[in-house]
């Protein structure tokens, strides 16, 4: 048996360079998004708005699924919550986007707290089915209560003010200009915050829960509390993304809460690689592009999307980035060492 070494070997993970599984690709994506308005037409830029909105939402879902191992099939409900918060707020005179984001976060986090408290006791299939049911509960509520929610027609979201300023310009200019950059900055902030969290002991504990919740318990990890925390955070981020979507489409649509929309979000997660930090963000980009391109090429884009998902699950379960980062070197696992 080896004796205690005199000097500590420099093998600590901190010394490792950033991998494909790390924050690198996301940084590239963010830079790309930042320069897009300059390189692309205003119209094309507007089509990139959902990449930012979905990007924030899947940032949260990645913490829930990629890092904590909980697959929610009802997460689109938070997109809907965010969008409807934006609609209700703007229609009642609250036009400041700062306030809208705060309200969306608050409502999203609160609902996530209640839903999570009930759901995170369960795992895997049951968690998926339960969240699907609750998501559909919200959908049916939004769909049916016409007087409150506008029913199947949804609720209009008016243009908010950014930093107190009203921007007197066309919708396309607004959405590809000030609003685009505003949301991008918010995205960057959340990327930094969540990245920091993932690299902390809390992030490590989440991954321990994902890998072996029983063992984690015996090592003193507060499984229930951390799961709930991850759920609340992801709910909050989902709502923020939803509010952005609501503003960019001008509409809060009950279909945002339909279970197939949750499926789309999961698709983005898996596409890029749920175990990596950057994967889902990249997945959101690819999904939006795929949908746009496929939709303009053929009316059968859903088939393309479905086939892609199927191929992914069968051939590349770790997603694009996950698989690529695995081939970079031995002993480097996607999830744990961004």
């Amino acid at each position, binding site marked *: 048996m080896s004796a205690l070494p005199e000097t500590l070997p420099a093998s600590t993970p901190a010394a490792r360079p950033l991998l494909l599984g790390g924050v690198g690709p996301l940084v590239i994506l963010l830079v790309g998004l930042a320069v897009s308005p300059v390189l692309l037409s205003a119209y094309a830029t507007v089509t990139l708005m959902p990449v930012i909105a979905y990007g924030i939402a899947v940032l949260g879902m990645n913490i829930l*699924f990629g890092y904590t191992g909980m697959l929610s099939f009802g997460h689109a409900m938070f997109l809907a919550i965010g969008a409807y918060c934006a609609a209700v707020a703007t229609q009642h005179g609250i036009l400041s986007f700062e306030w809208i984001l705060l309200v969306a976060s608050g409502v999203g986090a609160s609902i996530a707290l209640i839903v999570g408290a009930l759901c995170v006791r369960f795992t895997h*299939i049951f968690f*998926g089915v339960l969240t699907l*049911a*609750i998501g559909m*509960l919200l959908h049916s509520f939004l769909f049916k*209560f016409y007087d409150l929610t506008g029913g199947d027609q949804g609720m209009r979201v008016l243009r908010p003010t950014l930093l107190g300023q009203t921007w007197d310009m066309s919708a396309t200019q607004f959405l590809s200009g000030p609003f685009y950059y505003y949301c991008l900055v918010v995205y960057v902030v959340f990327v930094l915050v969540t990245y920091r969290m993932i690299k902390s002991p809390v992030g490590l504990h989440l991954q321990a829960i994902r890998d072996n919740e029983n063992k984690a318990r015996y090592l003193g990890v507060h499984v229930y509390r951390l799961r709930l925390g991850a759920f609340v955070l992801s709910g909050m981020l989902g709502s923020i993304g939803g509010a952005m979507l609501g503003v960019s489409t001008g509409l809060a649509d009950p279909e945002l809460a339909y*279970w197939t929309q949750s499926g789309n979000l999961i698709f983005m997660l898996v596409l890029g690689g749920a175990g990596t930090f950057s994967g889902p963000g990249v997945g959101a980009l690819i999904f939006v592009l795929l949908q746009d391109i496929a939709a303009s090429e053929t009316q059968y884009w859903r*088939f393309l999307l*479905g086939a892609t998902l199927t191929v992914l699950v069968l051939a590349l379960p770790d997603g694009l980035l996950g698989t690529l980062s695995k081939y970079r070197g031995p002993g480097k696992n996607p999830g744990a060492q961004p």
Partner: protein
Amino acid sequence: MQYLNLILAGLFQAAVLFLVACGLQLIFGVQKIVNLACGSFYALGAFFAITVVSIVQQWQLPALLLIPVLVLAGLAIGLVGAPLELMLRPVYRRDPSYQLLLTFGLVLMFQDVFRFFWGAAPRSMDTALYGAYGTLEAQAVSIPIYNLLVILASIAIALILGLTLKRSRVGRIVRATAENRDMTEALGVNASRVFTLVFTVGCILGTVGGALIVPTSAASLTMAAELVVDAFAVVVIGGLGSMAGAVAGAVIVGLMRTVAVTFASEVEILSIYLVVVAVLLFRPKGLFGKEAV
């Protein structure tokens, strides 16, 4: 006495729901796969049945052959499940999340398959055929005979399935494979074939259900996604993996739907989800379920 009509209408819905839920339960019970595409098979059965009936109509067959034709159509197209099961094989031993994703991929693909073959508008069948069975009227109870026959057919299928699983050799092999796949393989059973069989039967149940519903409602692109929610409600309330649960759950959901639609349509589907959520929280096993994961 109109309540009786309501109940019978509910039972009709339940009968069809039962078939699909039964398929779901069978597949989950044996292969531990949650088939999100169950609704897609339902829709497939519906669309295919409409096509078959419109072809067969040209042969001037007696209208009373409608039900057998529908069932055969459902049976035929349900066989599509067999090759699809091959695709599912890699994910059996993986994290359950992956099978949810895979079957979701199927849902997306099926959507466009329907669009391609049958177009985007809802399709319905010639209602005259449905009416050919006539209506049973007795003491202020009035029910279309077609509905009655479907309810009876459903009960028959339930009994046949139940008996097959409990008494027959095939049934025992299926149940053994469900309990412990590796063990049964060690005993010489070709588990892969059992899985293919079970999956195909599960799909056929779905397609037959869809075929049987088209005389009463149109086949549309949205019916697949909508049915998934109903089927899940049935399975959750009745209990995952249980046939008796499929019956109980189907009856409850079928009745709730009919009653709610009649009395308080705003609350209709909301009430079903509330019940689902309540069951998941307070009795996660459902009424007859075996496990709360």
